[in-house]
């Protein structure tokens, strides 16, 4: 064990050793991955050997345990991932709950857009257009006060009519729903541009890539 005592300040390490650069690299990979990464994938990405990755994983695991850290290494079938420690579950859930408050799913955004453009509109009409039941999206949007009810429609079942709220207008900086963009506005922005000198030198990659989960690992 340990042939590395060149740093007299550090406590003697009883476990396996690995160069700090390897450990840092493996930590970065596990951090960014978000989901379990197999040793093979770590080897491929890091260009270390399997033995080097294994050693780095072990050193990292011990380091995370020794220093009373917020995360730990979780060994799962054929690989490893970083997870927050169980003892912090309550505050972690609280934080994610708080952050989730401002978030909307794609389904909710689509429902919101239909209500914005077609208001007042009923749940069956929305479901017809979207092709799926939209009850949970409606509930979310009502909770967030982006939509409200606007009486009932005089058809079979007298379903509720929905419309957008004042908060919706305030959020989007509009005075009236009539000010919502029209297809022409989108064409003006996304249409062919006359100015060729303006072509992007570095054609854009959607920024979402940054947050994207590994698509190759479905």
């Amino acid at each position, binding site marked *: 064990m340990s042939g590395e005592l060149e740093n007299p300040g550090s406590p003697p390490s009883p476990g396996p050793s690995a160069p700090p650069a390897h450990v840092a690299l493996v930590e970065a990979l596990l951090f960014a991955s978000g989901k379990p990464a197999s040793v093979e994938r770590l080897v491929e990405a890091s260009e270390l050997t399997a033995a080097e990755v294994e050693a780095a994983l072990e050193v990292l695991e011990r380091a995370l345990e020794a220093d009373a850290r917020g995360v730990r290494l979780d060994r799962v079938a054929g690989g490893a991932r970083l997870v927050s420690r169980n003892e912090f579950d309550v505050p972690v859930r609280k934080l994610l709950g708080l952050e*989730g408050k401002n978030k909307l799913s794609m389904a909710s955004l689509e429902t919101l857009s239909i209500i914005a453009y077609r208001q007042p509109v009923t749940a069956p009409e929305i479901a017809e257009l979207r092709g799926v039941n939209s009850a949970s999206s409606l509930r979310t949007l009502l909770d967030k006060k982006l939509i409200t009810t606007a009486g009932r429609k005089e058809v079979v079942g007298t379903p509720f009519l929905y419309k957008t709220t004042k908060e919706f207008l305030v959020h989007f900086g509009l005075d009236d729903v009539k000010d919502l*963009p029209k297809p022409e506005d989108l064409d003006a922005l996304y249409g062919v541009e006359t*100015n060729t000198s303006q072509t992007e030198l570095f054609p854009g990659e959607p920024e979402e890539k940054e947050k994207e989960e590994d698509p190759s690992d479905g």
Partner: protein
Amino acid sequence: MAEFRIPVPAGADLMQPYPVKVPQFEGPLDLLLHLIRKNEVDLRNIPVADICRQYHEYLVLMQELDLEVAAEFLYVEALLVHVKSQMVLPRAVLPDGTPQEDPRDELVRRLIEYRKYKGVAETLHEMEALRLGLWSRPPARLEASEAEAEETDLSEVSLFDLLTFFKGALDRYRSAHPPSLEIAHQKYSIKEKMEDMLARVRSGGGPVPLSDVFRGLAGRAEAIAVFLAVLELLRLRVVRARQEAEFSDILLESTGEDVTLEGYEESYR
């Protein structure tokens, strides 16, 4: 400012490569700033005639190289020519004794303002370069069931996103429910239209002008159904069409054949 090399034209003397480097500009103001810098002249005292000539030469070069010259470049050239012409005129003194504004002033103000933002853009470019290699972690999920649900922060949703979502739903709906004849066909039965038509020509009110047949219909779909019904009746020889003169109205009348449409099957499905 990006630079690119013009490829050597075919047939050119390859021993004498003649690479032309053309600086590219973000716009006419960018080009003007470049010329001012190149000439080492003060922004507050631009030799308009010189700059105007060099500006023009650049546009000519672009045209010679078959690079499209955007309208904005031409607009600023016209502005330069105008300023140049103003410069040769003696400047009036306003009634309160102050001299009239220098004709270059507006352009100078715009250049100064533009240069500030260009400078910020360069700073942002450097700041960005330091951060392109940073990767954050996908946020943890509260529930396993949410694993697939992609969520967006409402503050990041633009008005155009709303419109795009709406258009997406509409497009999906339309491709799932193709409009046109099929709907028309289901809504308006050709057989019904044939029965209506037959009743009309047999009512004894004389020949029915074709133009009357299309009056008061709900829309294109119904018109198509009526037209198909007329053709069908003609084919079955229940109805006859005649025209009294060229370009006069076509008249429909019963042939007198006693045909019932009982059991008639629509063949236009």
